[in-house]
Every structure is written in C-alpha cells, then in structure tokens.
C-alpha cells in the first residue's frame, strides 16, 4: 500500500533519473541526492523526506531506457520508492532486481498523483478509483534473486557453494 507521489510519461531515460554529470558519485548512500536532479521540484520533495517508504512513481513505457548506470536504480532505492510502469528497459529492470528496488510491470496502469495503490502478487489495485489492473510476475529466475535479498547475497551463496563452504 502506497501513495503515488510522482506520475511521469514514456521513455524516461537514465539521464533524467540520474544525470550523467553525477556519475562519479557511486555510493548508494550518496546517489539519492541526485535522483531526478534536473526536475528541481521533485528532487527537492524527495530530499525533504516528505515521502514515506513505499511511495510510488507511476510511469509509462520503457522506464529507465539508456545507460547501464546503476545509480539510476540505487538513487530511487535510497528513498524506498516503488516503480509501477507499463514496462521497463532491460538493463534498468535487471539493475533494480539486483539491488532490490521494487519494480512492478503493469501494462494498463491508470493512476494519478495522490492515488493510493495496493500492490498484490499479480495485480495493482487503485484504491482511490477502485480500478484493478493485472501486473506481470517476474520470471522465476529473477524472483530468486529478489528472494535472496539481491544479487550480492545471491552470488555470495553461489560462491560459498562452489568453495565447498
């Protein structure tokens, strides 16, 4: 259950989510300050701490297109945001899974800023409008990474297994 705090359109690139000029900043503890840096209003709201964790960004098609920069996922993860989009660009989606940023593929989503959404295993319910939308489950192999808590613990477990530990 979370509130939509930002609604955006199609083809939101990683240059919009995390502008290239901040790429020298890599630590997940430091990247959130530059999330949507060129959207002064939204960036300021994020930094003010007014959004509770599990607040939601609703986006159109191809969210996260462009660069492979992982900062685009880590900066949103830092605020505990959930991204509900019609669909995601491949690398951004994989980075989100690897870092544990919650992404929901919901091809028909209809929601506006201020709406309350309930996110189920295979649906998104807009509590404000009462409309329910199907969401696409992740492939099993990707879900396994999320269940492990992200790619670092997942890889660590494989490494230990290979080392016979």
């Amino acid at each position: 259950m979370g509130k939509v705090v930002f609604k955006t359109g199609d083809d939101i690139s990683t240059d919009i989510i995390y502008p290239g000029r901040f790429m020298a900043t890599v630590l997940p503890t430091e990247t959130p300050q530059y999330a949507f840096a060129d959207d002064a209003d939204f960036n300021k709201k994020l930094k003010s701490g007014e959004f509770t964790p599990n607040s939601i960004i609703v986006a159109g098609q191809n969210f996260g297109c462009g660069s492979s920069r992982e900062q685009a996922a880590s900066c949103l993860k830092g605020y505990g945001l959930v991204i509900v989009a019609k669909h995601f660009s491949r690398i951004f989606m994989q980075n989100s899974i690897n870092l544990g940023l919650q992404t929901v593929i919901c091809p028909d989503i209809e929601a506006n800023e201020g709406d309350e959404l309930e996110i189920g295993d295979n649906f998104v319910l807009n509590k404000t409008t009462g409309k329910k939308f199907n969401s696409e489950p992740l492939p099993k192999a990707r879900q396994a990474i999320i269940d492990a808590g992200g790619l670092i613990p997942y890889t660590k477990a494989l490494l230990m297994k290979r080392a016979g530990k």
Partner: protein
Amino acid sequence: MAMTYVQKVIAKACGKPSVAVGDVVEPEVHLAMSHENAALVINQFNEIYKETGLDAKVWNPERIAIIFDHRVPAESSKTATNQKKVREFVAKQGISKFHDIRGDEGGICHQILPEYGYVRPGKVVVGTDSHTTSHGALGAFAFGIGATEMASVWTLGNILNVEVPATIKVNVTGKFLQHVGPKDLILHLIGKLTAEGANYKVLEFHGEAIKNMKTSGRLVICNMSVEAGATSGIVPPDEETLDYLKNVAGVSDTIEIFGPDSDAQYVQTINIDVSSLSPQIACPHTVDNIKPINEVSGKKINQIVIGSCTNGRLDDLEAAARILKGKKVARGTRMLIFPASWRIYREAMHKGYLADLADAGAIICNPGCGPCLGVHQGALGDQEVALATTNRNFKGRMGNPNSEVYLCSPDVAAASAITGVISDPRVGG
C-alpha cells in the same frame, strides 16, 4: 532444433547442444569490460567476498578489460580518486587488458576492444556500459549490464539468469548514395522500431549492404541497436570480420566462425533498401524521433560534435576532413572533434585529417567520451543546440536540460559546420 545466431552463441557458452528462446541460462563470459565505473564494481565485488573468509580474487584476470574513457583526464578530484582506486585493484588482481590515460594505447572502450582483438566472434561479452552492443559487429553476443551484475561475473565467470532472447532479422539491401551510410541506416531503423521496439530482443543484421559494410560501419549499427531497446545487435561474422581481426586488430590465432541456421525462427523480419535512403536526423529528445534531413535543414546549430563510440573512427574523421578541407567552420558555431582512440588520433594526424579540421576552426580534443554524456567537456549553454554524431539526445544528455541535441552522421555534421545550420552534405557546401 534450428537456432538463430545468438541462440548458437549462448548454447556454446553454456556447453549445450541447443537453447530455446526464453530458456534461462548462465553462459560463460569470454570478456567482461568496465570503464571508470569499475570503481563501483570493485565496491560490490568486495561486498560479495565480505565475511566469506575467502580471498577476493577475480575468476580470471585475463578475461577482464578495464578502459578509462568517460572522464579522461580526470575532471575532478573525485574521478581521479576513483581512477586511482581502479589502478590499484588492476595491479593487485593482475588484470592485463587495462588501458589507462595514455596517448599510445588509450581510447574509448568500444573502440579499444575491437582494435586490440579482445572481442572474438561467437563469444559472450558483457560490459558495464549500455553501448557494449557495439561488439556484435564482430559476431559476439555483447550486452550491457549494471555494476553489481559485473561484480557477480568477476566472482563466478558466468552471467546469471540470462533469458535467451528472441531475434529480429534485419535484411539490408541496396547501395548507399554518396554521403549516406551506416549512421543513417541505424537512425532510420530506430525510427521504424521506436525506442522500445526491440526491447529484450536481438537485432541480427543480414543482406548485401551489411556484407559490403566495413567493420567500422558495423560497429555503428550495433552500437546504436540499444537505442531501439535491443539487448544486442549482431552481424554474423564473415570474411570482413576475419580480415578486420587479422589485419587491423593483429589477431594471429585461428578463428572459427559460424552463422545462424537457415531455418532459424525470427519473431519479425524487417527489410530495408538503402538505395533511396537520405541522411537521417534524430531530433530532441528521443533517439526514435527521426526525420529525413530535408525536414530539419536550416536549424541553427551552436555546437557540432564529431566523435564518440558511435562515429569517432578514422573513416568518420576522413569524411569530415574531406568536406571541411579548405573551408571554415561558421562563426557562431563551434566544432569539437573527439577521435575514438589514440590510434585513430595518430592515424588521422599522419593522414592530415586533423590538420584539415583544425585549419577549418575545429577543436581537436583528446579521445574519450567527452561531451556525449555531459560529464567532461563541451557542455551546452541554456537554449543552445548541438548537432552530434553521438548516440543519445535525451533531455540533459550533454549536461544541460535546457538545451537540445540532434544526432546525425559525420557527413551531415561536417557540412553543417560550414553553414552553421543543419545542412544536407549532398547539396554542395
């Protein structure tokens, strides 16, 4: 089972007789490339090893390549410190395919990898850069990944949970008109497919126009395949690939090549005849906003950029020098040249291209990513307009969200430098 080219590459890398589209596999990685973002990969790699009691050694230092290109020489103390950290890691781990900030062997990663023969046909290449798709030009299955995923590859030597992608076959026939080439072809294709039209799919290029295309041109079309959302763009290897590897990259070992099965299944087939193709322009602020040049010619340009991993190669500089030799860059327009590597820089210098361009008023910058992603040099002022041979025109891409970027071929960039407005190179300069 009949397989597309990428299915064959993945099957080989998994030691399986075949793989089907949608299978989830863990192929062996032949080459794992990073640039400055290796600093973040190192952090994540150390996190993986933390509290395991194991010695943090990469799986195979011979299969890792690290090339500094995004911010060279460093623009800030932060970058310089990250680069220093990477250098120390490289020395400690014994990583030999390391290209530091040097005039003899430096350059942009997507030029260095082919130039040094690091990429081989039929292999899996991953890179912490979305334009890793470039290396499909040599018949590799090459794709971009994030830093944490790379840390996992450094640890295990496999890339986990790869879904075998479906393939779109792109048949390209005909012969390019003068001043029209690979950049126009790929812009046209992205316009047709849209920015997400090839999401999670591979573009497999075939046809007479591809067969006749040099590796430098194939690198352009594979580089920008990601702008249609493709996981990878691939030209199945042929005589040209072998010739490039032997004579340009200096590879001496025997290379086995193969193609897709003749009855392989494609999700879509796209046919393009380039004979009537005109110069194409990607207009702000998405790469799929493609228009033929006649619809945008006359647009005033403040900054022209020729370079990047897309179009900073010797033939690109040659095309620009031919057009600009004896001419002048228009007053009120500045022109920046970023060769893709120092080898290209030196060849262009010896051939006189750089002198011709500088005599015309262009600034010759050092090889690197430069202004393409707005982190280093060549930022734009408010309301300024750039025309660039680079690969992205997203809002804010060149460091200023209040500016505009148009994308084009080197020929269009050079012709437009003379007039200061978007100009068709086919119309006398």
